[in-house]
């Protein structure tokens, strides 16, 4: 991945070209080997008036191959990874390039807010003035009403993820914050202040997924493999769901991914979850089966999900501190998890025994969800 942050002068295509360069260098694979490209982008039409980005991404990466763009809102590149994995598993391809890119800071916060709201129901949510922080706020306030919880509980999620990103050179914020900073920040949508929200970011991510046979033939070091992938959907609008204190698309995606990998929640050593807002991490931990519904609200304040806890979560800094260029996020979770598992991430030392990692990438208010399980094989 590229460093995430404010790179407003760079187009999404340049960002993806840079991420792809790093992926080729890291993998030691030639560009000519790539047989298909799976690319995630969400708001290119709003930010750059650019649609039809599949072939553009291939071109930027210096690859001549069939190329398709995936739009699942903020789960776009998680979906791209999943379909890339399936292309390799099916035997159709030995080498695929997956990833995503998003340029967000070249437009104003109001325009960006408008673009992101397109991930909600345009007729019945966005028209009514629902922003993305607004939609997650509706989830958070209902959660508080049913299960209890407070702004302070959520603040611990932000503080933890900022702590995890302190030494991550790719993170947008390498800056410690405390609970008071979160509680005293300007309000965005109650109960969220500025530090409850992931930032607008520019950035790209890329990865090369290869078949076992290709890795063997080329004598590639491929110490981490995708052992499970799952995806599910839900109603786009919150008001069309039976309950809004949980995220069933994530539970269903996780069930499929766990079955695919032959593992369960207890086998997961580290997780990257889609903390676009602080409540989203809580809902993810519950949907993935790490906690019963209504009980993950104090996981961060208890220390269970911190770097030295029983389930270190978002060691990359998460979307909150690493940044959230929406179309790049899903694949960036995969590249960060891969580094964490193979031992060359700044936070690898703290989780040296970790062998199984999970990524949870959500689109909209989890109307899309992709869950991926990675395991150390070497």
């Amino acid at each position, binding site marked *: 991945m590229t460093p995430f942050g404010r790179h407003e002068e760079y187009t999404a295509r340049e960002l993806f070209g840079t991420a792809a360069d790093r992926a080729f260098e890291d993998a030691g694979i030639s560009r000519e080997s790539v047989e298909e490209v799976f690319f995630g982008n969400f708001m290119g039409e709003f930010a750059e008036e650019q649609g039809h980005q599949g072939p553009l991404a291939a071109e930027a990466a210096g690859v001549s191959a069939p190329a398709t763009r995936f739009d699942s809102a903020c789960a776009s590149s998680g979906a791209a990874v999943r379909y890339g994995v399936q292309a390799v598993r099916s035997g159709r391809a030995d080498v695929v390039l997956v990833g995503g890119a998003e340029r967000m800071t070249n437009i104003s*916060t*109001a*325009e960006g*807010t*408008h673009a992101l*709201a397109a991930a909600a129901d345009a*007729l*019945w*949510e*966005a*028209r*009514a*003035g*629902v*922003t993305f*922080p*607004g939609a997650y*706020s*509706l*989830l*958070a*306030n*209902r959660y508080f*009403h049913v299960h209890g919880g407070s702004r302070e509980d959520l603040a611990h999620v932000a503080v933890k993820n900022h702590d995890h990103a302190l030494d991550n050179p790719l993170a947008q914020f390498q800056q410690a914050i405390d609970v008071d900073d979160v509680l005293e920040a*300007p*309000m*965005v*949508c*109650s*109960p969220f202040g500025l530090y409850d929200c992931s930032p607008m970011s520019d950035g790209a991510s890329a990865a090369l997924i290869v078949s076992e046979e290709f890795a063997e033939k080329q004598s590639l070091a491929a110490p981490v493999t995708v052992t499970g992938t799952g995806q599910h959907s839900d*109603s786009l*609008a*919150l*008001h*069309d769901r039976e309950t*809004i204190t949980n995220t069933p698309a994530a539970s269903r995606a996780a069930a499929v991914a766990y079955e695919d990998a032959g593992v369960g929640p207890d086998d997961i050593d580290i997780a990257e979850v889609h903390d676009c807002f602080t409540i989203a991490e809580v809902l993810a931990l519950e949907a993935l089966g790490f906690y019963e519904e209504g009980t993950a609200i104090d996981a961060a304040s208890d220390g269970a999900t911190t770097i030295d806890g029983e389930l270190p979560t978002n060691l990359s800094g998460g979307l909150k501190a690493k940044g959230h260029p929406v179309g790049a996020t899903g694949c960036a979770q995969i590249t960060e998890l891969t580094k964490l598992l193979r031992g060359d991430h700044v936070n690898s030392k703290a989780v040296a025994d970790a062998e199984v990692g999970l990524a949870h990438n959500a689109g909209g208010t989890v109307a899309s969800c992709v869950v991926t399980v990675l395991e150390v094989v070497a």
Partner: protein
Amino acid sequence: MSDDARDSGFDDFFDALTEGNPYYLESPSGNAYLPPRSVDPETGETELSREPLPETGEVITQTVTYVAGPRFEDNAPFAVVIAEFGQLRITGQMRDVDPESVEIGDEVELGVEESETSGERVPVFYPA
């Protein structure tokens, strides 16, 4: 952002509301939806009937938006709620009330407003 074409289903709903006959769509299993919809996504049932919308609803969740998109930048801060009218839930902004005083459990009535910036009709709620 606006175009002149009707959004069938969506505009039918507001026409009916304005005429005093608001309705929602219900499947034989009893699931309730806003239009347009031709199938119950839970059950696959396609025989959706128009049912009269109850006059008052109850707020099931709320938020106050301080940072809005361009369509509503001038309105901020405003309260957005999901309100439950019998089986049906609708999302909209609260009117005629201090946004920070809105609470889960409040009773509301449904109304319609035309957006100043887009000309589109949007659902709004008033304290019941």
